[in-house]
């Protein structure tokens, strides 16, 4: 979007923002400040305990398992999603006549509420379900998929399913933003398809890559919805994520641990956002 010059220094802008800011302060900013304070206090006596809540969190076995799974999940599904969506976006970009149908198709999962596919999931992944039936018919062995290490991969698949369209739209926006003149010039100079891809398309897509990475990361937290509705509070250990842990601590009202963990996650995400802004500014 274009830069504007003549926004006026004018405090009356605050009148437009004030109602929203008041709500944001009451519902998020002040209570979160309180959470930071609580993360340094004992659960029972409200005494200052320094970093001991943080130490408890780090040494907690469930936290380690959940953090490990969450990192593994993100480490696997984000490159898969980003790569696959780029591949499809490139195909669609070269065939704009057919792109519309596929864009619609891949965006549909974004609209599909998790609750409406729970049943399908059970029919697919049950021990006697459709997946087992198919595997047996080609000579394999059926399995109770959701209660096996496969549960993790099913979660990865459902993340891809849900977010593919979103990322394709973002990649396409990045591709459309590259000036056709550059491609034209390269082709005139005799560059091949792969040369053009490595030397022109990819470097020009770098800013998109940063954004897409961050948005994919943040959307990956929402995979809890699928995980929860399908497998409940205590799923197979391979897909026990930080989100489950938060839920379970919340049910036990372990406010001390929860506060510390919330602050930790907020710090990690805040750090990522700063990194991203830095990357953006360097690109300028």
């Amino acid at each position, binding site marked *: 979007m274009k830069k504007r010059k003549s*926004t006026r220094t004018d405090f009356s802008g605050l009148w437009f923002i004030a109602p929203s800011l008041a709500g944001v302060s009451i519902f998020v900013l002040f209570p979160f400040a309180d959470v930071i304070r609580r993360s340094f206090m004992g659960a029972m006596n409200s005494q200052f305990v320094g970093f001991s809540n943080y130490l408890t969190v780090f040494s907690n076995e469930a936290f380690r398992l959940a953090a490990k799974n969450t990192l593994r999940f993100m480490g696997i599904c984000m490159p898969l999603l980003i790569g696959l969506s780029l591949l499809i976006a490139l195909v669609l970009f070269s065939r704009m006549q057919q792109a519309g149908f596929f864009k619609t198709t891949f965006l549909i999962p974004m609209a599909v*509420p998790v609750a*409406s596919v729970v049943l399908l999931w059970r029919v697919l992944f049950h021990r*006697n379900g459709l997946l087992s039936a198919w595997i047996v018919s080609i000579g394999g062995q059926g399995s109770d998929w959701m209660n096996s290490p496969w549960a993790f991969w099913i979660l990865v698949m459902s993340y891809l399913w849900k977010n*593919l369209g979103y990322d394709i739209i*973002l990649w396409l926006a990045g591709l459309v933003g590259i000036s056709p003149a550059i491609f034209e010039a390269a082709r005139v100079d005799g560059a091949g398809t792969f040369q053009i891809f490595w030397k022109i398309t990819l470097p020009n897509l770098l800013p998109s890559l940063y954004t897409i990475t961050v948005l994919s990361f943040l959307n990956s937290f929402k995979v809890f919805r699928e995980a929860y509705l399908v497998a409940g509070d205590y799923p197979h250990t391979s897909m026990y994520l930080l989100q489950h842990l*938060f839920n379970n601590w919340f049910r036990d009202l372990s406010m001390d641990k929860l506060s510390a963990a919330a602050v930790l996650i907020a710090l990690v995400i805040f750090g990522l956002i700063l990194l991203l802004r830095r990357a953006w500014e360097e690109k300028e």
Partner: protein
Amino acid sequence: MMKKYFPLFLPAALSLAVWLPVLFLAGGSLMGTAELTKNLSPVLNETYGYASWDLLPHFPTLRPYVRLLLDQPQFFVMFWNSVKLTGAILIGQIIFGVPAAWGFAQFDFPGKKYLFTVYIVLMLMPFQVTMVSSYLVLDQFSLLDTHWGIILPAVFSTFPVFIIYRFFRGVPCAVIESAQLDGAGKWQVFFHIGIPLGMPGIMSAIVLGFLEYWNMIEQPLTFLRDKTLWPLSLYLPDIAADKAGLALAASVVTLAPAILVFLYGQSYLEQGIIAASVKE
């Protein structure tokens, strides 16, 4: 010919993964109990053998929908809960978010940059980060276990502010300046120029918001203990064999509003996704 369509093989294969589940739900919801039992008995009753599926029902019937309508009052309570929650949240987001977006887009005052950064950071925080703080504030105001406890924090989500802001930035200065020369006040400019020209942005925020809140799971699960207040997104169908048809019909009814909004608003959805990502 082959060469021309070959690259489309991958997207075409993947789109099966989208269309088959939709067909599964739609077809299944029109099957009679006998047909469903025959297909799904190995899963639902743990009998021997494997489930099977026909994409189209052999004996289509609307009975599951009729039964859903007549025998499942709690389903409709949840449906209306969803309508109420989603509607109230979206209306609130527009009332508070649109002026805020205009304020950020059109005015310059000291500290604006920092304040806007705070908004962006908040928009990017997942639910789990603000879970405890929301609990504390809802507890303070005795809003736990009420619909307002879900609606109010969502109304002050900063995401719609950011989306609408992006569109307001695109309103040309010249239009605003000429209106001001004609003697229009700040609020007149906002209502008569800002809102009409920013309408696509507002629509984008509404479409994205609808899809998000119609599928809301974390907030009601955490803050509503009374199940009569739960929205449809938490409806976990009881899938005993004789109720599978009901469950499928319920899934379709849950899906339908989201698909309608999607089909109507797809271009807004795409604009919104892009707006949320493009850096300034």
